[in-house]
Structure formats: C-alpha cells, structure tokens
C-alpha cells in the first residue's frame, strides 16, 4: 500500500507498543491479533527500529498480510491485515 492509502485505511485495532522493546511489540501484536476478525486491519506503534523489520517477518510466518509502515516522529506505524 502507498503511504496515502495507509493513512486512510480503516484500522480495527491499534496496538501501542512504544513502551516496550524487543520482543515486547511482537508479544503485544500476538495478543491483539486474537481480538480482531479475519480481513481486519491492525496497526502497531513501535519506537523500536527492529520491530519494523520483525513485524513483516512475523506476518509472513503467521500468514497475515503486511501492508506497510509509516514513519512518524520518533516512532513507526506498522500496518497489517489479519488472514
């Protein structure tokens, strides 16, 4: 997805994992993904540079669709669609 599309995507769940370092954001993403339905979009906020690389890999393993990342000041917004 382009940055413009990401900004306008309907997000079902937002996970703020800025208060935790690796592997915290992954654990929070795992917990949160169970609360949304298939096809729903989730965003993960992380201040961790590594999480931006980790989440797409996690998506690939879990079968979720990684949509893209937006860079905000001091953190990342990482988008994915549940399978």
């Amino acid at each position, binding site marked *: 997805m382009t940055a413009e599309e990401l900004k306008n995507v309907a997000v079902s769940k937002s996970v703020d994992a800025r*208060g*935790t*370092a690796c*592997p*915290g954001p*992954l654990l929070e*993403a795992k917990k949160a993904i169970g609360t949304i339905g298939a096809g729903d979009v989730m965003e993960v906020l992380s201040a961790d540079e590594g999480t931006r690389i980790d989440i797409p890999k996690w998506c690939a*393993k879990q079968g979720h669709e990684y949509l893209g990342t937006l860079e905000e000041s001091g953190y990342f917004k990482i988008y994915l669609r549940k399978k």
Partner: protein
Amino acid sequence: MSQETVNQLQELREEIDQIKNKVTGLENNRLDQLSIAIIAGDFDKILATMIIALAAAAQDTKVKLFFSFWSLSALRDRNKKAKGKDIISRMFGMMLPKEKNRLKLSRMNMGGMGPRMIKSLMKKQNVMSLDRMFSEAAGLGIEITVCEMSMNLMGFKKEELIDYPGLRFAGAATFVAEAAESSFQFFIS
C-alpha cells in the same frame, strides 16, 4: 541423443526423485518447534535465551527449554528452602545465585556492578525484566524442563525451584528425543 545419454538422464531423474522423497520425509518429520538446551547461568545468557524463546512463541512456534547445570540457578526461588541437604549441597546452594535476579554477567560483572547497570539500562530502554519474561513465557505455554541429573549433582531440590506451570523433571534423553522433532535446536553455553 545417444542411448548412453538417455540412460544417464534416466539415472539422474531417478536420483532426483529419491532425493525429493527424502527431503519431503524430513520436512514432514520436523515440527514447528524450537528446542534450547541451556548450560550457562549468566544473566545475559538467560536473558538472550528468553528473548529468542518469546520471539519464537510469539509466532506460534512451540518452545521447549531444557535447563541444566549452571542455568538451574535461574530457576531457584530465594524464598523457598529445601531441607535434608548434605554439607556439599549446602555449600553449592550458598555459593550459587539464589534466583534469576541475582545472576552474574558473563562479561563485565565487576563485582555485581555490571548486572546493576544492565538492569537499570533495561528499565530505561523498556526491555522486559527477567521476571516479566518468565511470566510471559508461562502465558505463551513455553515448556521448561529441568535436567534432573544436574539438579541432583549441584545439590538443588525440587522444593526450592520457582513455581512455573508444567515444570518438568527429565533427563538428557528427553531433550535429545524432542530436539530431534524440532525444526531448530540451540545450545546456550
């Protein structure tokens, strides 16, 4: 094509098929499972073990941790006492760390200053504490097995170990048998 080339091609094809069958067989035998044997009892090595274990569990990989030798200190509960120890066991018990928060660093321990510095950095940078990692591990169903032989050797008793759901006591054969089913195996020493 000469008859010879045709025969050679045929042989190659058969070999490829055999290899394919072997690979499929191997793939089907491996579970989405990670086995880690931990020998080291240093704070940094236990921390690294738990981070990898949690990252694997977060992607639904089954994780099996096998704690042996020095790593057993990480599973001790300092508020629990065990009775009926002989003198050598008591000495070991006294000299070894009484819980995970008292483990030393494998490098730059500096008489206990290193671990204090690392812990304050961890807090500052929002890295989970070892206590929190163990409780997350329990929640994710990460399995912990205690090597019974090394526990006896070091004079530890079951009664002085932490409460962890499904804590098991077993031997090296259990680790080897389960590690053979895992798709990856690590050794932390």
